[in-house]
């Protein structure tokens, strides 16, 4: 049997060596695989890690891609810190988008940007309501929130599918499942730079991260509510002795993370798609779980984790465009990267013991 025991103290050297070794192994196995498959290994690494930063508009696109991951990741951070396992951010993302989008479609000719702010609020409510279901079931009936939140993802997917094929289908779409386009007021514009114009798809929604990260850092580290969340996760018994209301905290973190997922959805769709379609999320809600852990459940870490994941995804596209490396190969590399990063972190914190099971 394998047991993980927490290390008393993490040595200084290992906090540097851990990530360094992770990167070393990732690069080593990456080079090996690319070379064995007959691709120029150094060029491939260049494409994956560096090419996304080789032009200013590509850098902008990294942030655009990372934006929903970071917003959802911050919400999940609160849940995971409190030991509440919200696996259904994908569904909350969809429901937030759908509710806000349906609202936007009620105003087909509005140009006032007030509409998008109302939509962001409604998106928060929509996502929070969807997360409220596992929250209430968990606190009242002690139903496992992992299962409920996960299963609700599929309900949400089918629901938006039904809505855009039925009630909200654009009559001019020849039966194709698309809503009418949003009015101007419901769209998030791309940022125009004087003299340059657009930078990739960089849009004003990305500014939300700039607000969210310091705010969430303060919330987690400097407020009583943040402290309660941390204690509940680290030592549930201590939290109870201290008189913290466990159920209230559970509900709160689920509502906030659901709400943020909904906001991420509104921003993503209003900035990049501009109408409702059967698929609005592309696994962001699931990828954000990795982002939250890769960022060590800490706002600044999540910012970087989001950027790393976005970089690798964009780099994979670049590698394919310029070198014809199929997605399965770059996907494999992405897996290796995540494996070593997370393993490195675990080994830093835990000792592993192998022992025989006594019969």
């Amino acid at each position: 049997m394998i047991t993980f025991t927490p290390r008393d103290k993490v040595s200084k050297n290992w906090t540097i060596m851990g990530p360094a070794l992770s990167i070393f192994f990732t690069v080593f196995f990456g080079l090996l695989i690319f070379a064995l498959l007959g691709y120029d290994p150094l060029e491939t690494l260049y494409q994956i890690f560096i090419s996304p930063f080789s032009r200013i508009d590509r850098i902008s696109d990294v942030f655009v891609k990372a934006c929903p991951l970071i917003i959802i990741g911050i919400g999940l951070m609160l849940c995971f810190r409190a030991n509440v396992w919200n696996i259904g951010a994908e569904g909350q993302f969809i429901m937030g988008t759908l509710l806000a989008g349906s609202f936007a479609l009620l105003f087909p000719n509005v140009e006032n940007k007030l509409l998008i702010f109302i939509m962001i609020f409604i998106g928060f409510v929509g996502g929070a309501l969807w997360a409220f279901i596992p929250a209430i079931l968990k606190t009242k009936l002690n139903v496992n929130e992992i299962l409920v939140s996960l299963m609700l993802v599929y309900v949400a997917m089918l629901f938006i599918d039904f809505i855009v094929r039925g009630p909200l289908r654009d009559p001019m779409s020849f039966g194709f499942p698309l809503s009418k386009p949003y009015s101007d007021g419901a769209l998030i514009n791309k940022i125009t730079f004087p003299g340059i114009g657009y930078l990739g798809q960089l849009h004003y929604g990305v500014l939300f991260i700039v607000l969210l990260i310091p705010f969430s850092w303060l919330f987690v580290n400097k407020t009583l509510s943040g402290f309660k969340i941390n204690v509940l996760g680290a030592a549930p018994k201590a939290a109870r002795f201290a008189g913290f209301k466990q159920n209230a905290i559970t509900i709160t973190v689920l509502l906030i993370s659901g709400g943020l997922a909904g906001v991420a959805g509104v921003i993503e769709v209003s900035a990049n798609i501009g109408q409702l379609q059967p698929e609005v999320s592309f696994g962001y809600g699931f990828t954000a779980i990795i982002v939250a852990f890769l960022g060590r459940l800490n706002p600044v870490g999540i910012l970087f984790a989001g950027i790393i994941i976005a970089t690798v995804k964009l780099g994979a596209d670049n590698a394919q465009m310029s070198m014809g490396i199929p997605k399965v190969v770059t996907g494999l590399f992405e897996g290796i990267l995540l494996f070593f990063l997370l393993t490195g972190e675990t080994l830093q914190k835990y000792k592993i013991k192998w022992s025989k099971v006594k019969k």
Partner: protein
Amino acid sequence: MIKFCMRIFSLVALSASVLFLLINSTFAGNQTKVGFVYLTTPGDHGWTYAHELGKQMVEKRFGDDVKISVVENVPEGPDATRVIRELAKQGNEIIFTTSFGYMEPTLKVAKEFPNVKFEHITGYKRSKNVATGNIRFYEGRYIQGVVAGLMTKTNKIGYIGAYPIAEVIMGINAFAQGLRSVNKDASISVIWANTWYDPVKEADAAKVHIAEGADILAQHTDSPAMLQIAEKKGALGFGQSTDMSAFAPKAQLFASINNWGPYYIRKIEELKSGKWNTGDGPDHWAGNDWGGLKADMLIISKFQNMPSGVAQKAQEALDSLKSGKINIFAGPLVDNTGKEIIPSGKSLDDGALWGMNYYLKGVNGKIPG
């Protein structure tokens, strides 16, 4: 230690950038750069594989005169916009976006790159530099109907539809027209899979059809799962998009094969000679360049697993469709509730096909939604 690591890393980065510059500076000047965007990885069957085969025909035809970049597995959302823009930025002169969901992303990027030509497959929105191409898939389904009508013993045909949109419905109706041209007693039941590609759901739908007595199966979904079930249970069926006889050698009667190659080649040739245009088809149907059997954009695989008499009838249907002797949607047409669609002497035009929201006689049930 850290310093050392840094040195190694900077060395790696440096050498990689040098290599990159070398590669970039050596590309030849006279090539036409062509970009393709794929919805999935091509694999060995189905929609994207058919496009991959088309791309290979382009490579064969033009050789070193074209430089092709492909991006596969691109979701139909913001990623598509980014990928298409990146392809345009890298100097591709013509970009084929090969799925319906790339419609808005293609139009968006096309606005930013007025000198790049875009070819959106199966869409219905065009602009100055966005053309649309599509295949008359329904023509193959008419022949499927003819073969099904002659082969069925139970007079029950099981049809698996992807989504209830005009594209799929006109396929079902064309099948019904073919079926009823040879067998007035047979009828079609439809199960909606609500997916273009999901082998598990498609297999389940096939099992249900067979359990309810269908002995011939047809599909408007993408995986070979239906044929594999048919093979196992002794039923027969038709392959979709590409020849699927390798998956079901005893069950596939024939496959309607999407043949994009000639279209791609023609459009690239037009580009090279400065004659590229967005065609003159009106805006009210999908694909202003809408070719079928006659244009060689749809081809029919070998007729197999059927008596020679049936194969002969199928060949006759194929020939008459090519020569225009058969007009699939010629009146009188009656829907399956008995309501007249058009009287005899008239026939549906392309615009009417894209507005189809009814089943013709010979199809059971109602269209959902």
